[in-house]
């Protein structure tokens, strides 16, 4: 293997495969472009939901909603995830990337697929929502684009697995793979299951759309489609948890409290997260309660257990690192003295908190079999998943971008003052979007609905004024989040193309073993002073009490609705 394929990163000492670097760059840029497009669609949806503004006509609203889901939930997140996989595989292991040509083919397939489906949506004949529930039929190239995209993403996962094998064969690292790579591996394993589900259901649906298959059972479609649709959110969870660990390590030198516990928590994701398809079938005919209870709880909440563990070990590792640096006063000096002006850290920590409090708690409550009766298909659902995939995943991806720009793009971050503010602006907006949509949902406001005033309807229903207030606040929050998103795209794109270049370290720098830490690990396991984490215990306690209270409050609400059996 030729040495000139690599450069040594001057800041981290990581050995960077130049071909992996180019692949990371282009996958990330493609993701950011789709984020910009999808974000604009999202803003237009929120402004239409705000009754006083009511921006788009009905057909455009439903079209924009379809495109919004497609562009941000699928294309932005998966493109960026592929970049994360290549980073966690090739760069963190100091290895060459396996089969770079195949990786480029995967990129092209994903891009062509994503564009094809976007074209299908914009042509207007495929306004079927992101979920495209049969028997509602989209144009054939809507499904074809998704299939191409899935095949491309699956191929990219294969390149990642291949890179792990190459790194092991060529001994580019000692011992076990790093925790972050382990998390990325978790994401890739779940991705294989997910994309396979997508292929299993979308290929016959494509054949149905061109008239070869006679009919697709709507329940079967929904069950398997959500094997892709929900499980792909678990790819996101694994990926953004891996990023939390990565940012804590790179910015603060944080070390996992216990490798065993953190890895076991990722393993729980692999075993149990796939059951989540059931979350979408809780009020469906034809599926038994026993099936619903077992699957919706991920077999007794074992995947939730995984997330709750990360929810402690990530802040715990930060607290341990900060205390080792001497921030030892009181419960929270470590947190007060954290680098809140560093957008990577600020974004990461807000992602952690909001994912737990907004997305996590609401998801478990909403996924309770009977409580789902009060929430299914209301705006509570998008309220929940904007807490997970936007406040959690997207914010974490934005945060890690501020580290990738110098490391991978070899540029300084432009507009550093704006960059400091960007995560806060975005986070406040997303927090509002999530909370106010959940609020509207508890008042019964439906999701995917153009006009809750029912102006054109023969029969009317009057929602309470509080619902209108919630939708207005949601619109304002969306403007705030869109501003944060715009700043992110501006900073990322202009840094990548116009940022000041950062030079390389001399090529003579030692190459193996690679992946050396930028700063010495703070404290080893069991050493005194690093492992008392009272601040984290208090934070986790607050989380737990909120969780339990909110859970039982919802059972109380449920007990008040009409009896049914």
């Amino acid at each position, binding site marked *: 293997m030729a040495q000139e394929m690599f450069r040594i990163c001057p800041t981290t000492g990581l050995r960077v495969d130049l071909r992996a670097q180019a692949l990371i760059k282009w996958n990330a840029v493609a993701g950011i472009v789709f984020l910009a497009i999808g974000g604009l669609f999202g803003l237009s949806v929120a402004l239409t939901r705000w009754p006083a503004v009511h921006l788009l006509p009905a057909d455009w609203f439903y079209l924009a909603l379809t495109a919004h889901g497609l562009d941000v939930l699928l294309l932005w997140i998966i493109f960026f995830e592929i970049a994360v996989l290549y980073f966690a595989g090739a760069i963190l292991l100091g290895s060459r990337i396996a089969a770079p040509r195949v990786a480029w083919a995967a990129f092209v397939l994903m891009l062509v697929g994503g564009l094809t489906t976007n074209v299908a949506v914009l042509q207007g004949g495929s306004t079927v929502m992101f979920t495209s529930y049969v028997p509602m039929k989209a144009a054939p190239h809507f499904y074809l684009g998704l299939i191409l995209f899935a095949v491309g993403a699956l191929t990219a996962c294969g390149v990642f697995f291949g890179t792990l094998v190459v790194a092991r064969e060529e001994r580019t*690292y000692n011992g076990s793979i*790093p925790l972050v790579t382990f998390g990325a591996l978790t994401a890739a394993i779940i991705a294989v299951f997910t994309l396979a589900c997508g292929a299993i259901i979308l290929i016959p649906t494509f054949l149905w759309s061109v008239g070869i298959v006679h009919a697709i059972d709507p329940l079967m479609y929904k069950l398997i489609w959500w094997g892709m649709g929900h499980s792909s959110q678990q790819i996101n969870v694994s990926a953004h948890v891996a990023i939390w660990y990565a940012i804590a390590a790179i910015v603060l030198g944080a070390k996992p409290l216990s490798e065993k516990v953190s890895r076991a928590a990722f393993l729980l994701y692999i075993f149990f997260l796939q059951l989540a398809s059931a979350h979408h079938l809780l009020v469906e005919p034809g599926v038994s309660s026993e099936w619903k209870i077992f699957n919706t709880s991920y077999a007794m909440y074992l995947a939730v257990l995984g997330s709750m563990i990360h929810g402690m070990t990530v802040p715990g590792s930060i607290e341990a690192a900060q205390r080792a640096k001497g921030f030892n006063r009181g419960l929270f000096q470590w947190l007060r003295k954290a680098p809140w002006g560093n957008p990577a850290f600020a974004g990461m920590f807000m992602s952690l908190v909001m994912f737990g409090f907004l997305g996590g708690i609401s998801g478990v409550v909403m996924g309770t079999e009977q409580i789902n009766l009060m929430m299914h298909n209301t705006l509570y659902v998008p309220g929940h998943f904007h807490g997970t995939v936007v406040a959690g995943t997207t914010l974490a991806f934005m945060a890690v971008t501020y580290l990738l720009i110098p490391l991978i793009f070899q540029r300084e971050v432009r507009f550093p003052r704006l960059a400091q503010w960007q995560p806060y602006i975005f986070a406040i907006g997303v927090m509002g979007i999530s909370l106010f949509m959940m609020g509207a949902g508890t008042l019964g406001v439906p999701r995917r609905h153009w006009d809750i005033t029912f102006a054109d309807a023969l*029969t009317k*229903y009057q929602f309470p004024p509080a619902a209108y207030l919630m939708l207005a606040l949601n619109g304002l929050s969306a403007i705030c989040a869109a501003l944060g998103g715009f700043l992110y795209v501006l900073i990322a794109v202009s840094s990548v193309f116009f940022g000041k270049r950062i030079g390389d370290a001399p090529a003579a720098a030692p190459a193996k073993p690679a992946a050396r*830490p930028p700063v010495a690990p703070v404290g080893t396991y069991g050493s005194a002073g690093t492992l008392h984490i009272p601040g984290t215990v208090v934070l986790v306690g607050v989380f737990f009490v909120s969780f339990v209270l909110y859970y039982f409050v919802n059972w109380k609400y449920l007990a008040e609705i009409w009896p049914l059996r």
Partner: protein
Amino acid sequence: MAISPPAERVWWREKIHREELVWIIVAFLWGLVMFFMMIYWHIVGQQNLSNETYRVTPEAFAAKADAMIAKYTVRDDNGIPVVKPPAGSDVYLIARVWLWYPHLELEKGQSYRLHLSSMDYQHGFSLQPVNLNIQVQPGYEMVLTLTPSSAGEFGVVCNEYCGLGHHTMVGKIFVVDRKPAI
């Protein structure tokens, strides 16, 4: 660090720190509580979704609904019949683009066997302001026993996207107090 291989090569032999261990146990037990809460509610709770479902064709379901409408229509509401079926009877509600058909008049405190099915796409039965939401599928007839516990006029909003007129799909359920026996 999390971005480099574990410092301890045999990391799986590490002892788990006490604060972590306590949290793992608490979180695991909480998961069990939440799991058994769903089962407990099936035993003592009043709000559980029925498991009774049949395969049905749109034509067969519409025929059953039409028979009920012919027998029990009491008045007309904007061109849509309002049906008042006897307490305890089978009540059929058709979902189709973009209509809930017919409108229903039920008595408070009485139970009805409500049959739901769609003629075309998927629809969402969203009873407001009760906020009770059930998915309605074509080809499947779900039967649930519903007991209105409050009187008044209730809207049935469609909350599953069903095409460009989705937002105009609203039905009605009127719940009246039971007339005292004479």
